[in-house]
């Protein structure tokens, strides 16, 4: 039986982070930009429709997630990150009329570095461990969450040498806007998920990409020296008046 230990998870985490390092800042920036554009769209909508009633807030709540997704998709496409909106019909396959079911949280799906990734809205929770939305009724999403069987391929029995590539884990970017003006992004590797339960190998908060920027190191940077042409060496001449003639006379006397 494959043994899951900290070392394995840590290696997996590093591998995924490295694979996605080129696109993580893009996704963060796109999320932040979408979040700044959406309120503007909704304000514009309310202005145009003369919608200044207290119900305007409802429009915001209804449109916000869909607009976020649509704008993020447009922005990602403009950065050559093609994604598609996940349309999951399983969600609507409701068997019992009065049964309370958890609808799956649809988002955007893409592929990068031979890995599938999805962009999903996080669940609101006090603890990071509870922010991964469960797949609900969706079989597709349950399948997507199911990474656990892949870990066995990381055992020494399946060395990566020998021409066969290790199967890659599916990844999720979870986003949230804890306040109207801020966003949070998490990198998640799900382990499994079914119904109203979802478990992850890790859920790591991603820091703002601006904090990872390092100024370019310029070892050969030369400070351009200021050229100052000197007239006199002795400051005392300046401070006490020009005694050049006197000293010349003294020198002459000494020579004589």
């Amino acid at each position, binding site marked *: 039986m494959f043994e899951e230990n900290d070392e394995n998870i840590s290696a997996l985490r590093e591998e995924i982070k490295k694979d996605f390092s080129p696109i993580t800042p893009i996704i963060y920036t796109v999320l932040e930009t979408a979040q700044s554009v959406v309120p*503007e769209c909704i304000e514009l909508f309310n202005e145009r429709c003369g919608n200044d009633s207290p119900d305007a807030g409802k429009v915001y709540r209804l449109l916000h997630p869909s607009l976020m997704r649509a704008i993020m998709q447009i922005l990602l496409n403009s950065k050559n990150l093609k994604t598609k909106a996940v349309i999951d019909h399983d969600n609507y396959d409701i068997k019992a009329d009065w049964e309370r079911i958890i609808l799956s949280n649809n988002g955007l799906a893409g592929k990068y570095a031979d890995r599938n990734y999805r962009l999903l809205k996080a669940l609101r929770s006090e603890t990071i461990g509870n922010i991964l939305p469960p797949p609900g009724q969706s079989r597709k999403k349950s399948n997507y969450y199911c990474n656990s069987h892949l870990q066995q391929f990381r055992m020494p029995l399946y060395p990566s040498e020998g021409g066969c590539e290790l199967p890659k884990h599916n990844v999720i970017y979870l986003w949230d806007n804890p306040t109207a*003006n801020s966003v949070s992004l998490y990198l998640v590797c799900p382990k499994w998920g079914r119904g109203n339960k979802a478990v992850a190998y890790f859920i790591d908060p991603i820091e703002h990409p601006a904090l990872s920027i390092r*100024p370019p190191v310029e070892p050969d940077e030369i400070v351009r020296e*200021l050229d100052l042409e000197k007239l006199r*060496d002795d*400051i005392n001449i*300046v401070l006490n008046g020009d005694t050049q003639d006197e000293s010349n006379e003294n020198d002459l006397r000494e020579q004589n």
Partner: protein
Amino acid sequence: METPKMNQTRTIYGSRIEQARKLSGYTQKQLAEKIGVNQSAIAQYEKGKTIPSDDALKAIAELTRFLPSFFELAPLDEFPEGSLAYRALRSVTAKEADKAYFNAKLMYEHISIMARSFVLPRVQLPLLGEKAERSAEITRASLGIAPDLPIRDLTNVLERNGIVILSLPIFLKKIDAFSTWVDLQGNRPIIAESFGKPGDRVRFSIAHELGHLVMHHPPKITIKLMEKEANNFASSFLLPKCVMDSELIKPLSLYTLAQLKIKWGVSMQALIFRARDLKIITERQATYLFTQMASHGWKTHEPNNLDIKIETPQLFRKMIEGLYDSPDRYAADMCLTDSRVSEMTLFA
């Protein structure tokens, strides 16, 4: 010209006592209490109506970190306060303005003495009556700066073009810099900057003062308009219009602004203002970016990893190095205590 008060052995200049007191940040009352005389005595010394006793003079010298002989040096005739006169707009206290002025005056005095032994770089600064954007373009050209590239070491560029930059050894809360024209080997511009401000802020303040030097000599409009024009000049000078369209690419995000901050050496907030002024983003988008910055706490302090290197002027240091083999000799010549010399040359 001030008439010094003399007795048989000494000539004491009251304005020197005032200079030492003000650059040390004491009120007359505070100084009086410290040296055990009353306030009116200090006022009398400063007006040159009475001469302090040897003990009083020694106490003043010790407290203000000058040698007693400092008070016997004939003061400099004129050091115009220049843009420091616009302080009313920034609610700067008189005490802080005095501290800035007298510190700059002292450094300028030393430079003007030492400058007699050097040929200073020729002044290449135009005096313009154009609008800020155009003035910034002309100034770049006059200083030999490419019209579309970031200015890497602004202080160095200005010094090489004959502008004297004084790095004041004091932290001034509400004054980042001020500028003035003085008579030093001809008409020469001076910019004095406060210590302890972030590198990008210092660069913007220097560019702002450059705007005053170029456009407001002599002042032609109200202080409020001059300040606005100088800000526009700084923004246009550091972030030229001809290249901003291709740099501030929409949609503008904090990440892009952070990258541009490193490249252009200005704050993220200055970049937002520039993008808004050039109508690359709307007022609402600018507000939103500011709000996002505030949510990260970056409006008061931009991320440390993006810190811009603090530029240091070279002229003052090079003059001292060129004329003195040790700081002690410089201290003795200028009548300063060692501690004041260390302080004055720390950032030079």
